[in-house]
């Protein structure tokens, strides 16, 4: 038996239940399994245990809705090279690169063994972001364009190196790591659970609710405490509000980048309305302070429930007009259609997740494949929005349809919400299950978020690992601009809107 099989709504797993196998066995199994589109890797990381380096791997089976856990170990100072899985399945590249960077584990024949994010505790301190080994192509007719790491707008830092033939992009390489803060280490450096919650909210500012929900999921599985119905519903509403706000904001940003003023100002107004709704509920426009483990400080009152219902209905109605405007403007369609295409096969190969994957026809959606919270309880019947084209327009239309869909979900959930029920207060003190591994998967607006916590014998968090969907999707952006004009890079970039700090942690 190579895997321990569980699912996204089960409790935490005792460490002793996770089989420890030989790398060769795991390698051979994954080599075959990952050829099937139903499987993909949710997380794969190493952590030192005593004088050993222990590797954990979470494999998702989308068809059977199962999560498969496995592990293997090697001596901390062992320098045996492991055969690289990235060479066969590029979707593993961020994981193998991280392990290599942190622990100097060599993956034999890894075609893209570059530093991932320049962690403070990386093994090779001589490798710095200023000496990032950019890929080069020689040729008289080629020129390189370097954009960043500091950008003209208000976005985060990241270096983009284009190799162009005239206006056409041959290759784009994205070097990240400027935003590294050591978030994962911070989680294990404190037992203060409120502090940890605040950390979770700060992993990526635009996904505060999604990350906090994932963290709360991890902790609640370790507490083995049942969560009440209203809490689950509130979290779903908050998550869908965040999805609406970000998708609307990106519709506006895409309009701005092509100089379409009406779409831009309409979406800016609607996005403000959406985040102000969240603010009226919990006091923060990004939903910070709303999600707490095992309880809430901001229960919905009847007035707030009504306010959210009214606002969401209004936003949904007005946004639909913008969507129709965009759909019926030839000048806009000429910009978005057939631009920045990522084919479905490529998306599966690189392990693309979330709305970007769905725009390419790759149905990766945790809400239906590994349901959590309200989606697992059946309060909403989720149907993923999927498009086939994989271009900027498809990504925009997935967003547009998801905004309308989320508005419906919020309406349905709030209509069945009973404000008279007792609510529970957050639990920051109960002891966590010792010697256990707990994971939670959430579909944030950008895609699949996976947090994994491992507790020690005293029940403190020893290792906390975070995976943001951007970790996979940055490569999708690089593929999208290949062969495009360099002037179309900004709209390709906006159509993904990936997180720098979520990647750099």
């Amino acid at each position, binding site marked *: 038996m190579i895997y321990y099989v569980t699912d996204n709504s089960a409790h935490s797993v005792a460490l002793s239940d996770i089989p420890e196998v030989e790398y060769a066995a795991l390698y051979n199994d994954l080599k075959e399994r990952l050829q099937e589109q139903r499987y993909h890797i949710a997380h794969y990381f190493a952590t030192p245990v005593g004088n050993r380096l222990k590797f954990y791997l979470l494999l998702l089976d989308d068809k059977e809705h199962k999560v498969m856990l496995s592990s293997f170990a090697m001596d901390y100072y062992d320098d045996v090279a492991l055969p690289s899985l990235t060479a066969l399945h590029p979707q593993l590249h961020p994981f193998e690169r991280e392990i290599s960077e942190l622990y100097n584990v060599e993956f034999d024949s890894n075609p893209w063994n570059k530093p991932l994010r320049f962690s403070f505790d990386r093994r090779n301190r001589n490798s710095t972001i200023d000496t990032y080994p950019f890929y080069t192509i020689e040729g008289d007719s080629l020129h390189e364009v370097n954009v960043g790491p500091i950008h*003209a707008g208000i976005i985060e830092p990241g270096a983009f190196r284009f190799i162009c033939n005239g206006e056409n992009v041959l290759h784009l390489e994205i070097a990240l790591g400027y935003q590294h803060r050591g978030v994962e280490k911070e989680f294990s450096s404190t037992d203060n659970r409120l502090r940890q919650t605040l950390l979770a909210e700060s992993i990526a500012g635009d996904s505060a609710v999604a990350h906090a929900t994932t963290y709360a999921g991890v902790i609640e599985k370790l507490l083995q405490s049942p969560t009440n119905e209203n809490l689950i519903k509130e979290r779903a509403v908050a998550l869908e509000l965040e999805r609406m706000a970000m998708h609307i904001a990106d519709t506006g940003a895409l309009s701005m980048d092509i100089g*379409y003023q*009406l779409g831009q100002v309409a979406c800016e107004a609607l996005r403000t309305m959406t985040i102000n709704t969240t603010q009226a509920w919990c006091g923060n426009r990004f939903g910070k302070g709303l999600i707490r483990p095992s309880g809430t400080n901001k229960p919905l009152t009847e007035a707030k429930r009504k306010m959210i219902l009214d606002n969401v209905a209004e936003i949904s109605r007005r946004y639909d007009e913008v969507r129709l405007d965009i759909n019926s403007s030839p000048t806009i369609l000429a910009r978005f259609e057939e631009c920045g295409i990522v084919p479905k096969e490529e998306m599966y190969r690189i392990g693309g997740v979330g709305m970007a994957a769905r725009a390419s026809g790759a149905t990766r959606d945790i809400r239906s494949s590994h349901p959590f919270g309200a989606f697992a309880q059946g309060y909403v019947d989720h149907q993923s929005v999927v498009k086939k084209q994989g271009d900027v327009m498809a990504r925009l239309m997935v967003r547009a349809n998801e905004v309308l869909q989320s508005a419906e979900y919020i309406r349905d959930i709030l209509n069945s919400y009973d404000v008279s029920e007792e609510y529970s207060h957050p639990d920051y003190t109960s002891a966590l299950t010792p010697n256990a591994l707990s994971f939670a998967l959430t579909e944030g607006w950008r895609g699949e978020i996976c947090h994994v916590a491992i507790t020690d014998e005293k029940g403190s968090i020893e290792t906390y690992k975070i995976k943001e969907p951007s970790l996979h999707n940055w490569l999708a952006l690089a593929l999208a601009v290949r062969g495009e004009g360099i002037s179309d890079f900004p709209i390709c970039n906006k159509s993904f809107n990936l997180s720098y700090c979520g990647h750099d942690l």
Partner: protein
Amino acid sequence: MGAIALNTLLMIVVALSIPGVINRTRSILAGRKGPRLTQHLHNVKLLLNKGAVYSTTTTVLFRIVPTVYLGAAIVAMLFIPVANLYPLISFDGDVICFAYTLALARIAIIFAAMDTGSSFEGMGAAREALYGALIEPAMMIGFATLAMFCGYTSFAEIFEHEQSFNLHYTIIMLLTAFLFVKITFVESGRVPVDDPRTHLELTMIHEVMCLDYSGVDFGMIQIAGWLKTACFSMIAANAIAATCCFYWWFAVPLAILLTGLSVGIVESTQARNKLVRNTTFIVTISALAALIFFIGYLLQLDINI
């Protein structure tokens, strides 16, 4: 003498007014109140009061270009009459001189962009050179149409035509006005060809060439841009005024509103072209110019329509 002074003054008024009208139109269409009509003047005043910062990779060429650019734009402006008034400089063939004075401005700023050694500015220079070369035929054929139909080769004489109603003359003048409105869009770098508001270096054409300019230099480039827009706008306005009401008090508001409103409306409602489609867009303007020339030729032969 008074007419010449008034002419020059009015050209300056047109140049300074158009950006304000564009911004106000865009604001109103976006449902905002918008900045005051003179906001752009305050912005440039601020720039003119500042010193300039120069990159260490640039040479003296980079420093003299703003002067050449603004100088060329001022000289070009002095060729343009305001309806029945008279421009400062006028001689036979001044339409050609006008076109190449502006070409001098273009080549100067292209050299300055190349001088910075920045990969962005190099791309901008390449784009500007391509689109500049493509719009030139449209402009020259437009002038040729006017010259052929009116029998003169100087702006001042072209538009001074008899006031009696003439159907052929009206048709050609209105078509030419339309052509020059289109040329205004390209020459002043507005949507759908270029987007002066964008912050994305990779998509810019004109703006990216000015990225390294600051303070007083940048202010001069902005003013030159306004003057250029005013020249083309006034040519279009003159062509319309010549058919109905050839007086300066009609042509001046017409020139301001023609460009101010059309640019404002297009920028509010339409997306920018994909960059590769700009080529088609501009070549189409040249084709339009050729068509108007051909119509003008047929009308001059006095065929019956």
